[in-house]
């Protein structure tokens, strides 16, 4: 008997559900929970992590992200304007900057700023602000390159008619940029900028390459060190949960914004 198309689709969907549930159950039943439980979900180790995994590590991660984001945004706006300039050398500088820091692994950039720059300058790193500052500078450089492209795309996505309407009302180029183009451009780039924030949050875990102090450990480094000291995976699981508590609301927020903007169009 031939199935109707909707019936076929339903049958297909239910098959997928059944297979997925079967896989989950198989993993749950075959896993050796007696061994895995104490290794990864150990209440005693978890109790030892609190509260510093939140009050030190998570707070550091958020601080580093905020600083890198703010710095990257400022530098990114500047680079985007350079890249849109009518003056050739300005555009070339911006393009070179963006291509360089987008093309390199973030960890290499951070490493270079942390160690190569002090050597090249002949000054010890501690005189240049120490590992935290140098690492953050590296992260800002990386962030600025990604954000510059996002910002440029956003500003250029504002229709030309908007500028023409503002200019025809007698508004100067500066006022047109400030009141008409930038507000609309930023509305367009809030979703990609939120994604950039999430990426940066995760990239703060690379700051360990320039060295850390006990007070400057971010989540990943904190959890890794604690994991080694306790020979236990629980701190890593806790760090993972803390990352997700921050990132999932942000990505959901982005998705919501995108849906709302799609409606407005």
């Amino acid at each position, binding site marked *: 008997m031939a199935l109707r198309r909707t019936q076929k689709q339903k049958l297909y969907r239910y098959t997928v559900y059944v297979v997925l549930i079967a896989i989950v159950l198989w993993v749950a039943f075959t896993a050796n929970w007696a061994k895995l439980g104490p290794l990864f979900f150990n209440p005693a180790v978890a109790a030892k992590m609190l509260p510093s995994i939140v009050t030190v590590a998570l707070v550091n991660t958020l601080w580093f992200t905020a600083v890198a984001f703010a710095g990257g945004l400022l530098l990114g706006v500047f680079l985007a304007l350079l890249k849109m300039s009518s003056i050739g050398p300005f555009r070339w500088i911006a393009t070179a900057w963006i291509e360089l820091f987008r093309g390199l692994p973030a960890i290499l950039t951070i490493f270079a700023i942390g160690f190569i720059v002090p050597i090249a300058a002949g000054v010890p790193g501690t005189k240049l602000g120490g590992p935290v500052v140098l690492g953050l500078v590296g992260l800002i450089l990386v962030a600025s390159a990604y954000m510059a492209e996002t910002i440029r795309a956003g500003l250029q996505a504002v229709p030309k008619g*908007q500028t*023409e*309407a503002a*200019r*025809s009302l*007698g*508004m100067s180029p500066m006022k047109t940029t400030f*009141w008409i183009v930038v*507000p*609309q451009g930023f509305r367009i780039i809030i979703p990609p900028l939120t994604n950039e924030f999430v990426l940066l949050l995760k990239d703060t875990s690379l700051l360990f390459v320039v060295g850390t102090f006990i007070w400057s450990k971010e989540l990943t480094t904190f959890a890794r060190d604690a994991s080694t000291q306790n020979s236990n995976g629980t701190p890593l699981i806790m760090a993972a949960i803390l990352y997700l508590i921050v990132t999932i609301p942000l990505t959901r927020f982005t998705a919501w914004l995108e849906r709302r903007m799609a409606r407005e169009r």
Partner: protein
Amino acid sequence: MSTDLINLSAPTIDIRGLVKSYGDNEVLKGIDLSVHAGEVVCVIGPSGSGKSTLLRSVNLLEQPTGGEVLIEGIDVTDPDVDIDRVRTRIGMVFQSFNLFPHMSVLGNLTIAQRQVKKRSKAESDKVAKAMLERVGMAHKADAFPGQLSGGQQQRVAIARALCMNPDMMLFDEPTSALDPELVGEVLQVMRTLADEGMTMMVVTHEMGFAREVGSRLIFMDGGHILEEGDPREVLANPQHQRTKDFLARVL
């Protein structure tokens, strides 16, 4: 009032030998045209004839390659002229409305008043509401452009231009992007404006409007003004073959 630069006896718009080219492509090949106070000049012609470029050259949205454009006696092609100041005297209405989508209707009407004319909030609100009343949109002052129909958006766009108290208005195919049933409300606003004595230059495909409201009709083709005269005359009795062919296709 800033009368220092205005020469009242001059034509409102005086275009002399206007040339515009993009690379090798010459779009305007020497246009001479004067528009006097209170005139409604309608410009028609096939697409690519240069009619929009001509209109956009009047307020320098297009930078002319040659020739002069005098607005109330001031040559706007002179690099020393404060173009922003001249533009406040020239209202412009676009085919695609170009309302600012991030601002309410009232915001659209007050932003340039506040930023350019330096009017107080209370005063610019008052002017905005009066202009919305004129175009029958006072009830939508707090709406956002995205919530309005095309016809409503275009009426708001006209009100926005009027808020600067311009001496003349440019219309660049103001009804071409509208659904047929919304064309009438926009033309009605333009007709009222013309009746009140506004100097207007209108690029349009609405032959009915040109015939009934226009004081002069201009037919453009290939970057030239081919024919010019009383709208009823030109439409009923075109002299050039190109004009006849064009009118046969659109009427």
